[in-house]
């Protein structure tokens, strides 16, 4: 599978990473190279194989549905690049 420039642009946007137009051909080439490497997987017979989910068969643990912590607004906001009045602040989303 070869990735063209339009696909590279679309993937960059899906990943929310700005890539300059001039850099897209190189990116497409790199991604294509990696995907070609992955295509060896097509040689493997996977009929009837269940995808692996965990190492040891184990039921997903459940915990009691109780509030275990909270009341730490200051701590949660302490690393925010922009926090105002107890909220994370971002550019205007809704016009």
């Amino acid at each position: 599978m070869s990735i063209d420039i339009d696909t590279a642009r679309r993937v960059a946007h899906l990943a929310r990473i700005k890539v300059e137009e001039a850099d897209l051909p190189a990116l497409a080439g790199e991604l294509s190279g990696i995907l070609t490497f992955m295509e060896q997987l097509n040689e493997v017979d996977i009929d009837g194989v269940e995808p692996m989910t965990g190492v040891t068969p184990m039921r997903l643990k459940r915990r009691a549905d109780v509030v275990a912590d909270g009341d730490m607004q200051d701590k949660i906001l302490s690393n925010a690049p922009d926090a105002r009045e107890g909220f994370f602040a971002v550019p205007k989303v809704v016009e």
Partner: protein
Amino acid sequence: MSDALNKLTIAGARDALRKGEVSAVDLTMACMTAMDAAGDLNAFVHPTPEIALDQARAADARIQKGDAPAMCGIPLGIKDLFCTKGVPSQAASRILKGFKPEYESTVTSKLFDAGAVMLGKLNMDEFAMGSSNESSCYGNVVSPWRRGDDATPLTPGGSSGGSAAAVAADLCLAATGTDTGGSIRQPAAFTGIVGLKPTYGRCSRWGIVAFASSLDQAGPMTKSVRDAAIMLGTMAGEDAKDSTSAPIEVPDFEAMLTGDIRGKTIGIPREYRMDGMPDEIEALWAEGRKMLADAGAKIVDISLPHTKYALPAYYVIAPAEASSNLARYDGVRYGHRATLGTGDGITEMYEKTRAEGFGAEVQRRVMIGTYVLSAGFYDAYYNRARKVRALIKRDFEQVFAQGIDAILTPATPSAAFGLGEMANADPVQMYLNDVFTVTVNLAGLPGISVPAGSDRQGLPLGLQLIGRPWEEGDLLNTAQVLERAAGFAAKPAKWW
């Protein structure tokens, strides 16, 4: 003794501390002196001398009371991937610049509760993605090892390159590492130290910056197998904050080092004999087989037929999980946010922030992961890779069912290479560094790299032992037999 305290092993320091021959403060000061003189290695990127001395004084008080655990007073380096309360924890990425967690990872909590001392945070590849420690926002780590008199700077390996360099250069007694595809074992092999990746689920992942959650595991990087046993005992255990941490008892791993492997069966997988593998690696592997046979183990040829598909499966699964995990770096809750232009909205904020914050390799892997998870490709790539992963795991289950106790392989396909030597290589070339280690993560097994010899330029080479799930104790015992038989005692000549 005081001029060499930083060169002690954990076991040696523990015994000296308990006898009152040294203090934790002395040990810590010796390591800090060594760190101060090792700026050229670029291993420690956030030293924490005040925390270290406070912890050392507390450890001394505890030791005097006579009930101190083994790790009490032991000075450690902590990989930057571990969140440490109030101390920069950046995963070596620009996108987490300035991030100081309000919490402590479970593994570091356990170490500090046991009295261990944190000397500082260690350099690594950005988000643990890399095999040479060249993708860090802090710059490269330089290995303390050189090719004889040749001053070419070498890689310590990656991603736990700072951990490996710091332990090999005696800047600390031991260090924490993490291993997603070989990031503990490959740098351990490149620097002549011991690196253990435990069974997936043995150590809690809580508070460790996530790369690929189904593969990530923390483990010890130490100067001896005994030290790995001691340190793992403190790091391991079930944790309510990580639902994949296993409800399995943590045994006394050190007590399981009996030195007796008579009657054990060691498998030699034929698929690990790679075309173009250097003669030195082949010879080392043969010597390892002989050492274990001489110790009374039975050596058996085995087959792990899906081995060649491990790397391509890994480079689907790990980027897929990474693209999901790294979606949280959006410039809102922590770390870097790009300066926005007039009219820029929230999408521009995300895109500019992530373009500025992530380095080239991280961007590449996030985009590959995004692609293989995108509509129309999910089954062709991601689900196929997960099925191949199940077959790789089944290969191991079948040989263990045949009575194999452990598997011996080379740790890496070569000795350490020069920094920059891979700069023009295809990304896939760099990925080949993980060819012997990545199967172990995919199958969730414990694996350990043991220093076993040197190449003709005097650089360390490691052998890997792979064990049955949850049998780290047995694995460590076999590893210690190999360690003793190999007798690797070389240290890098100090140039820094």
